[in-house]
């Protein structure tokens, strides 16, 4: 549905997007995670045709967005990270205006807008002044606004920021609902766990580059694998085990606390099994062998932190 190829964007000397690549399937609820300034908003604005890309290609449903923006406006719904509402408009009037901007007028527009308000659970606020709505309600109204023309793909820029848990939950429910209707949704946030709760797949972006992308399960697994191995051995075997582990190429760091060894290890489940087998074969007295529970937050920090180090070369130029 959405395909981004080699997208670059520079602001003067600052390289905001650096060879951005992304592929989102039809019907996916894709989460875009990155710290502030990582390039999430820039990517979205280029996708919806609000920003010039320095170079690269963006395809939505096989059509190049950057080459024919007008044709694409029908297929794209965009909710920016600000509300952009008109004072002294009611929720219904606000939606009707955007319906007319897509060429829908009169009773047809009114019915459509009422349906949309129902969809975002704002039916009772149809005639309320837009300015008097709470943040969560405004956010939902903006979502309804982006749905006026029944787009195939929705871009939501940090929709949950500044919302209280209840509003966040409601928004999440609506998004899941939309996703089940077959809409492709791209949603950005700087909080990975928040997205992990609702998205089908997640991409982590750091300094304009997609550093990790996968389904939620894969991300969870990656999170699990990112945490150290915990190996407990018999007291007398600590030194031997330590020496053995030091020689394993995938092992980056071993620390020992009494007979508990914490091993920073690169490898998947099979590698772990192999490692355990090797240890048993060497008659190392292994009591227990397991992965520490990994958190998404630490995974995110690890990925973003890791890429920060060679910063002399990337990002800012």
């Amino acid at each position: 549905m959405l395909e981004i190829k080699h997208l670059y964007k520079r602001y003067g000397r600052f390289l905001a997007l650096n060879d951005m690549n992304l592929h989102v399937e039809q019907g996916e609820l894709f989460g875009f995670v990155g710290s502030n300034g990582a390039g999430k908003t820039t990517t979205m604005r280029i996708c919806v045709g609000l920003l010039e890309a320095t170079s690269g290609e963006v395809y939505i449903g096989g059509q190049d967005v950057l080459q024919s923006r007008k044709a694409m406006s029908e297929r794209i719904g965009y909710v920016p990270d600000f509300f952009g509402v008109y004072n002294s408009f009611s929720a219904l009037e606000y939606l009707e205006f955007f319906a007319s901007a897509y060429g829908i007028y009169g009773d047809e527009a009114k019915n459509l807008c009422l349906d949309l308000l129902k969809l975002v659970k704002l039916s009772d606020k149809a005639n309320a002044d837009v300015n008097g709505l709470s943040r969560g309600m405004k956010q939902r109204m903006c979502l309804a606004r982006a749905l006026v023309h029944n787009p195939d793909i929705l871009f939501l820029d940090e929709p949950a920021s500044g919302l209280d848990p209840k509003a966040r939950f409601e928004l999440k429910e609506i998004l899941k609902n939309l996703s089940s209707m077959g809409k492709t949704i791209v949603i950005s946030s700087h909080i990975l766990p928040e997205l992990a709760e609702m998205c089908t797949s997640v991409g982590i972006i750091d300094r304009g580059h997609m550093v990790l992308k996968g389904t939620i399960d894969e991300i969870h697994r990656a999170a699990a694998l990112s945490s150290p191995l915990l190996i407990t051995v018999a007291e007398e075997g600590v030194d031997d085990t330590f020496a053995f582990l030091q020689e394993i190429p995938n092992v980056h760091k071993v620390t020992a606390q009494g007979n508990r060894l914490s091993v920073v290890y690169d490898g998947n489940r099979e590698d772990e099994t192999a490692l355990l087998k090797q240890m048993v074969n060497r008659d190392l007295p292994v009591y227990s062998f397991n992965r520490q529970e990994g958190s998404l937050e630490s995974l995110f920090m690890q990925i973003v932190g890791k890429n920060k180090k060679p910063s002399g070369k990337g990002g800012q130029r």
Partner: protein
Amino acid sequence: MKKTIIKNAVLRKDMLLDMKKPKVAVIMLLFNVLLGLVSLPFLGSTLLLAEGYSYGAADLSYRTMINMFLVLVWLETIAIFFLTPALTAGCVSIEKERQTMDVLLTTRMSTWQIILGKYFSSIMLVIMLLISGLPVMSLVFIYGGVSLWQLFLILLVLIATTMFLASFGVFFSALVKNTIVSVILTYIFLGVLLSATFSVSLFGIGIMENIRDTLEWEYNITTNINGDGFIFALWLNPFVTIFDSTAQIFGYGDEYLTINGMVTLGEEGVFYSMTEKNIFLNLWSLCSVIVQLLIAFLLLRWSAHLIKPVKRKPKKFKSNLNGVKRSNKAPVANKEATTEAMPRTVAAAEPVAAPVSLNKPEPVAKAVPKDETVAEPIEAVMAKEETTSEAVSDASVPDKDTDSDAGNEQ
């Protein structure tokens, strides 16, 4: 089903929003009070004169009513001149300030439609003001002197003037982000326009005349060059347009006081190349209105271009992108591979360090758990080597500590 007369969404929206504000009604009220107050003395004097008739000494003249009408027209002109920038110069920038512009730009509306909607919704206010002044203007019909047709013509000229002035407001509000800056720029520019048209035409005529005289007296060359054409710079001046049209329609009590009259019947030898029959002078008002509307149109087109978010299409991916040095090597070296090997999937149980290599053309990173061994683009490898060497050095130091700790414990 309701019938939709106005199809332009922005125009509908802005008119609806404007009508919700008391601003319009207040301006209209003040405007009409002013017109009324100004017309009363004229009406009064006419009444007094008419009263004098019963004593056989009346000098009742249509001219009084026409003069009243002219004063009203000029009042309206001044009102247009001061109100139009204020009402138009914020129309686009306010959308930018409210951050609604982005949303508007993602809709099906083209930038041209948005600009047109903005333009007409803001001049609609001024036009409504002009129309609201019609009853006061119609006082002139009590005694006559001005026909309905003449009133209509003048209204058209005033509307054309509004359209011309408003296009500058729209243009500046599309140009800058801030409404106040836009309003100030519009006023300054219109002020400059009004004075510059005069100075350009006078300066041009004077310079050309000097050249001719110099050639004639210094070099004995008699030429026919003249700068009379510079007079048409005044076509851009709406005040001159209104002056000419009022003079054409009603006269200022003297036939010389049209542009044509002033140019051709004035002092001998100034505009000797132009005769009374010059069509551009005769049709001064019409020509200048056409030119002004043309300029307004071009300015609006330009504004539509200004608010277009994506003006040029991006280059398709190319290797020699100036200055993008970091990873331009990567996609080039493996161009064919990269297009296919986008990060569609994370190999199920990949180590966390490996995903960095996911964007690289080696989808089988699983087989090579050590990143350094993957045939990667130079830059990326260098970056990673740095990290890994750092990690190793990080690891090696505490290792010894823990080692000795462990030893001590034992």
